[in-house]
């Protein structure tokens, strides 16, 4: 069928595949280290690597606005918040052997079974389906399209999100303040 389009897609594909492979490998290793490391501060830094890798994946999927928001909100705010949490709870700096509970093996079995089920299901459902390499050409840029969509189709969820953030702000102050 579309020979020209397929050739273009194949050419783009090589670079994308290489980038995806590097990002996916870094994310997978960091995620595994995050849930197995004995050092709390290292865990926060591995989380940073996973979040940055996710931002890279978003760029691969031509979602540059979400990638920037990911860097700002996740790496800029949430990781810093988590580090504050670690230090305010006087986390032991350095190796701490006692971070896993006694359900570790049950947890590993559950996670592996879940991975197996998800893998088989996804392989059966979406085998051989492609994400178009250049799929968005609407309204000039992605960001404009997102803005239009949020303030046109998703106005009420947007307002609900702002109320949610206000509630979270007030709730966090109420929960954490000293009486």
């Amino acid at each position: 069928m579309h020979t020209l389009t397929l050739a273009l897609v194949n050419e783009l594909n090589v670079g994308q595949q290489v980038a995806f492979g590097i990002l996916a490998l870094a994310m997978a290793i960091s995620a595994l280290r995050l849930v197995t490391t004995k050092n709390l501060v290292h865990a926060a830094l591995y989380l940073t690597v996973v979040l940055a890798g996710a931002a890279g994946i978003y760029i691969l999927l031509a979602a540059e606005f979400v990638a920037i928001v990911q860097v700002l909100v996740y790496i800029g705010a949430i990781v810093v918040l988590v580090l504050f949490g670690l230090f305010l709870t006087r986390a032991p700096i350095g190796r701490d052997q006692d971070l896993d509970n006694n359900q570790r093996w049950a947890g590993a079995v559950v996670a592996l079974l879940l991975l197996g089920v998800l893998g088989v299901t996804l392989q059966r459902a979406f085998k051989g389906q492609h994400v178009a390499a250049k799929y968005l050409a609407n309204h000039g840029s992605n960001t404009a399209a997102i803005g239009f969509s949020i303030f046109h189709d998703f106005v009420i969820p947007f307002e609900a999100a702002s109320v949610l953030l206000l509630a979270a702000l007030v709730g966090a102050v109420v929960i954490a303040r000293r009486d």
Partner: protein
Amino acid sequence: MLLNEFLFLAAFLFCTGVYGVLARKNGVLVLMSIELILNAVNINLIAFGAFNNTITGQVFALFVIAVAAAEVGIGLAIVLLIYRNRQSIDLDKVDLMKG
């Protein structure tokens, strides 16, 4: 690119996060594992948005990011409160409701 590459990566991150939530007993580490799970969902949303050629996936991912920010704020406030009352954030010791 194959859609399944992204979905498998997200499934792997999701399962790693589930393992972290089940197997860790430090409250902050459990919160970090929840962030892993939410990120896996975001990757799925954006991959399916690209697959279906629609912007809605990205809008949903933005909403998930907003909810994750609210969640981690409240979660850390709760963890700090547990620490203040018990001088420890070992979740195995928070078992007052266990019969």
